[in-house]
């Protein structure tokens, strides 16, 4: 969206500027942490250590990143058709429902290698189905997708409470959650996978879904930029009139795009339900759908950017949790503040420092040129 005004070496745009933004966000956080009476440098050290300092920390970071990659991709792909899918939250929730339905129905009868693809399908189909009505209404009735997807988030929440309390609940249980799946319906954890090949890593919720997320990113990249369908999708996004001139069925493209988007969001269900919780429960989406919006925008709607932004957000979540754990004075809300500041500086004030750097860069080059003369 932002047009770079003057050409600078690429490394400045993708390395230096993001770093500066991160620094700025951290400086503001430091001031706030100092004001509430904690040692800010200790806090930041804890946060970084928590996120990346141990294989367990990294595991958690990547586990969160997995969710963000799915929801970020969902938002991004819709964006390429100029559709603002705010419904990732609900689609992920329903995607998890799909996973649970399949696993609860078949975990007694089928082996793991059959359950995994079935659950993958179910998560995507359910997520896509939840996106289908808003998509249809947008394409054929002109209802604004932002409103309909927001509404569908609420509807999904109500549906899930109803189902969990009245249908899926384990009899006699206090908790509105389904029975745990049998072991064969658990997605292998990274720890187990690494153990198989002889590498020991500490336990974390990180599981095979992370690989699925990377594969999904790759597919999105291929789909958007290297297939005719992606071409059509971007055409519709940039110019509906030109797209129809080119013989593209714009309404169908809107439908397909939203179905893919919903399917991607639904994959959160694989990570959470099949990979980590091993049962259907309330509120397992925990806002990942909304975070996906920020992730997609920060990642410039490109899979590589989304993966990087997801890891940043994963680190914020994990590091933040560790920070709150180890520094009682810092509450989870304080961690929100730090996260918000980082989003603000790296996502919205992205180019704030650019003019300065441009100047610096010019001066630097001029002096170098002078010296050469």
């Amino acid at each position, binding site marked *: 969206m932002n047009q770079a005004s*003057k*050409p600078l070496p690429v490394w400045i745009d993708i390395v230096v500027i993001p770093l500066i933004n991160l620094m700025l966000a951290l400086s503001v956080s430091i001031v706030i942490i100092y004001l509430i009476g904690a040692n800010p440098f200790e806090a930041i050290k804890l946060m970084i250590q928590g996120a990346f300092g141990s294989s367990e920390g990294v595991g958690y970071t990547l586990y969160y990143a997995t969710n963000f990659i799915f929801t970020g991709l969902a938002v991004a792909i819709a964006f390429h058709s100029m559709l603002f899918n705010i419904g990732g939250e609900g689609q992920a929730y329903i995607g998890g429902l799909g996973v649970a339905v399949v696993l609860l129905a078949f975990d007694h009868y089928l082996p793991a290698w059959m359950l995994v693809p079935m659950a993958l399908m179910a998560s995507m189909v359910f997520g896509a189905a939840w996106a289908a009505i808003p998509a249809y209404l947008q394409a054929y009735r002109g209802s604004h997708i932002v409103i309909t997807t927001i509404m569908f988030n609420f509807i999904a929440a109500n549906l899930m409470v109803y189902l969990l309390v009245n249908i899926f609940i384990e009899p006699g249980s206090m908790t509105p959650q389904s029975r745990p799946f049998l072991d064969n319906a658990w997605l292998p954890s990274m720890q187990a996978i690494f153990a198989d090949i002889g590498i020991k890593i500490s336990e974390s919720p990180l599981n095979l879904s992370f690989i699925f997320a990377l594969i999904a990113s790759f597919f999105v990249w*291929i789909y958007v930029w*290297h*297939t*005719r369908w992606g*071409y*059509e999708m*971007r*055409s519709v996004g*940039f*110019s509906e*009139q*030109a*797209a*129809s*001139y*080119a*013989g*593209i*069925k714009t309404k169908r493209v809107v439908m397909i795009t939203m179905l893919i988007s919903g399917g991607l969001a639904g994959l959160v269900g694989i990570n959470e339900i099949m990979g980590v919780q091993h049962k259907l429960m309330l509120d397992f989406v925990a806002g990942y759908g909304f975070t996906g919006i920020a992730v997609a925008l920060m990642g410039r709607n490109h899979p590589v950017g989304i993966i990087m932004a997801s890891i940043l957000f994963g680190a914020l979540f994990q590091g933040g949790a560790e920070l709150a754990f180890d520094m009682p004075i810092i509450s989870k809300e304080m961690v929100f503040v730090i996260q918000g500041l980082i989003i603000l500086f790296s996502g919205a004030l992205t180019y704030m420092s650019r003019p300065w750097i441009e100047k610096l860069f010019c001066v630097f080059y001029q002096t170098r040129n002078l010296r050469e003369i």
Partner: protein
Amino acid sequence: MTDSPVAIELKDISKSFGSVQANKNVNLKIYKGTIHGIVGENGAGKSTLMSILYGFYEADHGKIYVNSKETTIKNSTDAINAGIGMVHQHFMLVENFTVLENIILGAESGMMLSHSIANAKNEIRKLEESYGLYVDLNALVQNIPVGQQQRVETIKALYRGAKILILDEPTGVLTPQEADQLFDILRALKEQGTTIVIITHKLREIMRLTDYVSVMRGGEIVTSLKTSQTSKEELAELMVGRKIHLEIDKTPVKPGETLIDVRNLGLTDAQGVKRLDNINFQVKAGEIVGVAGVSGNGQSELLEILSGLSPCSEGKVQISDITITPKRQTDPRAVRNASIAHVPEDRIKRGLIPQFVASETAILGYHNSSAYNGIILTKTEEIRNHCVYLMKNFDVRPNNPDIKSANFSGGNQQKLILAREMEKIPKVLLVGQPTRGVDIGAIEFIHKQIVDIRDKGSAVLLVSGELDELLSLSDRIIVMFDGKIVGQVDASKADERMLGLLMTNSYENKEESQNESSI
């Protein structure tokens, strides 16, 4: 050159966008009360120079003198205060505002709108009367034809008290009649002391209208001349740096089988207005049929139906292998598969996707072809090579498939679209406004390509607002008025005057039909 005082003087103006130097040490004097033309190829830097004068861009260095006083123009407010007004090439109008609201925007006479509106109405009446600038003040801008929109822009400038008026390619989108009216207005303005700077690609207009003319090339002013002391040919050569053939060499027509057969075609729009009424004509292979008409008389609708973009409500069309009736709709994809190519009238909105790189635009509409697709993946290399090939064939500059489509000049965008549509030598070629806003070097080239493809046996249907283009390219010309065909003439036997008369068939009804016209 003369003793009349200098209204504007530019000294050493330079401006670059990144690595592109759009203006290089430009020096220019414009005399008070004259009409000064600026010509130059696409991308020569004309618009940039005028935008600097109007404060839309800031020059990297150089000085501007207005009425011999050095003036800093950092933004449009400065320009307006210095008495400069501008009619931009792409209108700066708020489409869903009324004409009146657009005129007073930024020049309101008080806090309250009602007050401003009352005041403005009187003043605009005065402008209307003294210059013949009539507009419907209460119409929404999006509902009035471009000619009217341009008047709105002009009134906007005058309403702000402009004594110096800049017009960037004002006639690009106007019909000859509208252009004539504009020139009358400009002459009236000049009479009353306004200084006018006009950018145009049409040398004929320069010769008819201006007192002085400056030629730009590669960001520099090559020369400034008194119009009476130069000629079209000289200007053309100065612009392009080589000789230009303004005449087209054409072999006699050798018509083949009928490829477009339109019978009793009719179209009634959602409001129940008849946009097309009982249209009948044929186009044969190896023949160029031109469609003349004041814009808004059904030419665009005709093109849209033939290209499958919109359905018809009556009659029958046989085009290539495709039959179109009200019951049997078709779509652009089927049309293209039947070897029908379409160069749309509005290149920015339909013909290309500004955000796509050139190679992507180069396959728009053909993107499903197996030449560019594997089973799943697109063949990126093939697409790029194809684009490079098209660019070479049609002399698209810069010859780089990785540049965003938006960043080519209009003429080059047009060449790329033409290249795409003509490369496969379609059976039928539908072309709308092929040279709108394109410099004469490119026009020469485009005309030659269209004649070439006809000689290769394509049936060409050409919709254009340029009468001389129609006259020199077409073999036959049909004239449309109010959704009907009011005349079919042999191009070799027709002239501009005759077409003009046909196009305005019943002049008294014209105003009415324009109000009904589409956006």
